[in-house]
């Protein structure tokens, strides 16, 4: 409705993907089954990224896989997932519900990525997210995503094989994030998602041991936002493809900060822990309120303004 020019447009576009608002559910958070995904969507998310899916069912690490910290949370789930074949039924349902969905996949070779991507495409996802940044999975994730040549090859091969847009999720645990971002752009990927959780650890003093069964985990939540903002800013200085900002977003202002840094949309994970499942609706309202108070009409006008 347009009343007195009061319309505030927070729709977002990531390459060819259009979504009603810029808040996307981050991979690994309440996205293991279609019903949960539907619930998150009904709570306002503009789109959803699935849990990262591999070829075979994977149990992940033994508990403890989660530790709450003072300024964030630490997890080392170990990429648990039901495997691409079992996940078909979830995607099919999600698409039946009409939810724009991004299928997250992880593999250890180019061939694995292609197998997964083709299946995801066939099941009907709107786009792919390549998880090349899981901070604690051996042989997957960051172990792949820290080698720009390997990343370039995997994506190039994929781009020759699948038609749907490919976003690549990267880590901040890199000496040179710009080099990787450029390799991703060169490989013709459709967007970069930054950042995944950050390698970190919590030791319990009484037990005198790291709490996580995998010892090292991924740090997410409020504490990591300044690092994510920096990554998005640096990437956006150096590549033209769209960026999706992730890391520590808990309110509308956090989302706008990412957008000003250069993100076309944002993902929210741990924020759900701090503010509940309706964090998506809340953040959309907060974005609109802020835009209204500051006389902005189109959220997309704010993309990357911090560089000017």
């Amino acid at each position, binding site marked *: 409705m347009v009343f007195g020019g009061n319309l505030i447009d927070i729709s977002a576009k990531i390459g060819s993907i259009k979504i009603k608002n810029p808040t996307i559910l981050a991979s690994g958070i309440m996205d293991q089954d279609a019903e949960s995904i539907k619930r998150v969507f009904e709570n306002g998310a503009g789109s959803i990224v699935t849990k990262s899916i591999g070829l075979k069912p994977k149990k992940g690490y033994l508990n403890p896989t989660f530790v709450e910290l003072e300024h964030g949370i630490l997890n080392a789930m170990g990429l648990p997932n*039901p495997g691409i074949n079992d996940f078909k039924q979830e995607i099919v349902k999600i698409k039946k519900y009409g939810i724009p969905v991004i299928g997250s996949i992880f593999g250890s070779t180019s061939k694995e990525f292609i197998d997964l991507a083709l299946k995801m495409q066939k099941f009907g996802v709107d786009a792919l997210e390549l998880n090349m940044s899981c901070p604690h999975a051996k042989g997957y994730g960051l172990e792949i995503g820290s080698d720009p040549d390997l990343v370039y090859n995997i994506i190039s091969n994929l781009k020759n094989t699948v038609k749907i847009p490919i976003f690549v999720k990267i880590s901040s645990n890199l000496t040179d994030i710009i080099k990787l971002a450029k390799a991703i752009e060169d490989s013709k990927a459709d967007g970069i998602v930054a950042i995944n959780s950050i390698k970190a650890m919590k030791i319990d003093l009484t037990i005198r041991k790291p709490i996580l069964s995998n010892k090292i985990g991924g740090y997410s939540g409020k504490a990591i936002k300044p690092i994510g903002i920096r990554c998005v800013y640096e990437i956006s200085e150096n590549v033209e493809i769209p960026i999706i900002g992730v890391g520590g977003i808990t309110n509308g202002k956090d989302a706008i900060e990412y957008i000003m840094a250069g993100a076309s949309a944002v993902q929210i994970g741990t924020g759900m822990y701090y503010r509940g499942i309706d964090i998506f609706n809340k953040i959309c309202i907060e974005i609109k309120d802020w835009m209204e108070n500051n006389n902005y009409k189109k959220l997309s006008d704010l993309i990357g303004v911090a560089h000017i």
Partner: protein
Amino acid sequence: MNSLKIKEIIKIKKENQYVKTIFFKYDENIKPGQFFMIWIPNVDEIPMSVSYIKRNIAAITFRDVGDATNKLFNFKIGDKIGIRGPYGNGFKLNREKIIFIGGGTGIATLAPAIENAYKKKFNIKIIIGFKNKNELFFDKRFGKLINNLYISTNDGSIGYHGNVTDLAKEIIKDEDCLIITCGPEIMMKKLFELFNTYQFQASLERYMKCAVGICGQCCVGHGLRVCLEGPVFDATMLKNIKDFGKYKRNESGNIKYF
């Protein structure tokens, strides 16, 4: 913040050959039906209902079924566990007439709610079922409170011969009462079907990882998190949880039918 705390075991009670209760100091609020994540260093972290809520003390009561519970079973006084929580919603004692129905270790989950209802002078009945008399526990604890304690065993070695649902069918007549149950999901599902016109609350178990509602591992129905919106669900919700009594997801998220 609700971070991990390390607790020393201050008392251990062997309830029977398979079941033990472990006590530790705890002086924050717990609602009956809530659970802790229990860290057994070097082994695992598992969900456990709170089975005793006293002024400065809490306890968990568990059956030795695998690695983690076995390690716990062999713990001594002074040994340390990590706890985080309490998590979940807990039971709502919103009727004055309550029938508690427990099967196996599910009884541990019910115990604090039973004691609470007793303290409130509610009109309560307790029905608990076991495989056989060697598995019996908490019968004395409940027997001390009320006369209306009904026991069933599958082999008839004590109490009613048969399963708890059959016993329940014989005992429950009063539509005006609230049924609160915890036990094997198949049992609870059967009760739910039997007493489908009753007020009903069931405490569910699902594989848990984060226990705070973000990993999505424990979701049932339309994205309900057993760790957060559960573990206790009432009749209205249970009707919408089509997994109830049908299937669970394993650690990988694959569906496993009961």
